[in-house]
């Protein structure tokens, strides 16, 4: 069974760049072409945000791009249709859907998993689906479709719970929230406590690789996060770069270059 995460982390054990975009933003049909541009520019993993009216864990940038995408007409149904050809375009890049639980439940978890897997998507992040509910209700469905859940860990997560989340993760990665706050925030301002937290989790010798997200915005914060993790995740800063850009593809290429140069 193909596992693009295992292949990636075997090939590239550090400095993994995971980029997030909101589906349907800046324009309704930008999603697949932008994913292709980002992968060709040097992104290693791509997260596709499913827009939701009430994104509780997100800061202002993703709130605004989500609202814009919904106004553009993006829906989960349309996104899954658009993604059905994605593996002809991007055969090897690990791809994830990230979204909130309610649109998925209205679509139907079984249909969602079936069509997500059929499109060749590797994993799913649903921040408001806690591990307990996942294990009780949906683990069997995810496994049957060979979809990998990705769970969040924060500086407040106790060691026993980190190990439990690591156990529930099947060959994907753990998403280390960099500090207290929302996506696009300035969690990384407190370098010493962030370094201590990332080093503490590193020392647990977990089964899965770790990517750091929330507040990673540029080359400096990316490289800092990578010191104690396999890579890092950037969303809001990329979306800010796309905002109002005459050519979003050129803006995306420039943004990746600014991280990778």
């Amino acid at each position, binding site marked *: 069974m193909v596992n693009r995460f295992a292949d990636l982390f075997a090939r590239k054990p550090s400095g993994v760049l995971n980029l997030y975009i909101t589906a349907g933003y800046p324009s309704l049909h930008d999603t697949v072409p932008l994913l292709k541009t980002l992968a060709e520019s040097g992104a290693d993993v791509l997260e596709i945000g499913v827009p*939701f*009216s*009430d994104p*509780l*864990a997100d*800061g202002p940038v993703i*709130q605004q791009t989500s609202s814009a995408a*919904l106004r553009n007409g993006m*829906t*989960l*149904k349309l996104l899954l249709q658009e993604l059905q050809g994605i593996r002809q375009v991007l055969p090897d890049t690990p791809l994830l859907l990230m979204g*909130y*639980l*309610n*649109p*998925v*439940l*209205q*679509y139907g978890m079984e249909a969602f998993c079936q069509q997500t897997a059929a499109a060749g998507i590797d994993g799913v992040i649903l*921040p*408001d*689906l*806690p*591990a*307990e*509910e996942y294990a009780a209700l949906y683990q069997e469905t995810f496994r049957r479709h060979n979809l990998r859940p990705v*769970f*969040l*860990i*924060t*500086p*407040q*997560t*106790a060691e026993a*719970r980190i190990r439990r989340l690591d156990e529930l993760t099947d060959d994907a990665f753990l998403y280390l*929230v960099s500090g*207290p*706050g*929302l996506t696009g*925030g300035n969690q990384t301002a407190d370098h010493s406590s962030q370094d201590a937290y990332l080093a503490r989790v590193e020392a647990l010798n977990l089964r899965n690789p770790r990517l750091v997200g929330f507040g990673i915005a540029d080359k400096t914060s990316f490289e800092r996060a990578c010191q104690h993790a396999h890579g890092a995740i950037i969303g809001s800063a990329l979306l800010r770069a796309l905002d109002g850009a005459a050519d979003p593809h050129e803006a995306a290429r420039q943004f990746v270059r600014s991280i990778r140069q």
Partner: protein
Amino acid sequence: MSQYHPTERGYYGSFGGAFIPEMLYPNVEELREQYLSILADASFQQEYQLLLRDYVGRPTPLFRAARLSEKYGATIYLKREDLCHTGAHKVNNTVGQILLAERLGKKRIIAETGAGQHGVATATVCALRGLACIVYMGAIDMERQKPNVARMRMLGAEVRPATSGSQTLKDATNEAIRDWISNPTDTHYIIGSVVGPHPYPDLVARLQSVISAEIRRQLREKTGSELPDYVVACVGGGSNAAGAFYHFLDESTVQLVAVEAAGHGVHTDKSAATSVLGRPGIIHGSRTLLMQDEHGQITEPHSISAGLDYPGIGPLHAFLADSKRAQFLSITDDEALQAAQLCSRLEGIIPALETAHALAALDQLPLKPTDVVVLNLSGRGDKDLDTYLRELHLA
């Protein structure tokens, strides 16, 4: 165990649970582990009961409304929660939660508010106990409930406008949750209604249950029976209804009537009647009935009342609606306005706009002369006077 108490994981039937991002897990888990033992603790109960009596002014009277009774042809009692300190039932919950927050060692309090009553009640107890207080309120609600914004500021609270979405109660709750995510160690979130992730719905229902405990005792003194034929209360999130229903839930002869805001009417796109217009979904950490579009996006409710325009209802109420234990009625903006005027002129009591919905529902009940009705008069209408004068053309 009554089926109306939540399970270990916080479910009432298929409703409830705790669908929260991992960032909230330590706080919510701490609360879940400790709330029952703290509530049962003798020192907590001693302080809570003393504050309810000497600070809130409990027990609130159960008043036989003679002229409303005459009009509707039944015996109607009003449970006078409007006489609570701060002018609504909301303070029953905030007094309890501030004591809980102290026992959890929290230094900073956040809250959401719709009509401003919960915000005022939170600002009040924070002043009383010397804790920092930040209240999130929809920008539109700040405009339509100005007196309560002023009261919160006078009490020393910081009122932060929620400018996203519909700029009302749902969005204020989003912002409060985002604040809690950003302040994971020193902050307690005092939710104002029986909504949110487990254990909040149960915690708030227990703290409001003093309403129905008193009703039973007072009704026995007045009529010889603890059990009325009807208990009527308005429902936005549902905290005053939960408190008024609580000790009657297992009494099958008592008809429970929950009154929602129909706004311009349940068949228009300006309504907040969740039990009619909602389907199961997730909002603010709870699986409940939810107003949403076919794609699962939460829709923006409408009511003239800032306390009732919430697109969900507490999971207990979703279960009461689904199991038909409670009857759900809906009342339009206009019907509520007329009922507020009627109550003012027949009983000399100006009710809150939220409460006016419950009063208007008396028109829809098939009352008999022998029926005893208890209506929870959840709040007073001072905050709504501008709206009343404008909409009833009294200015």
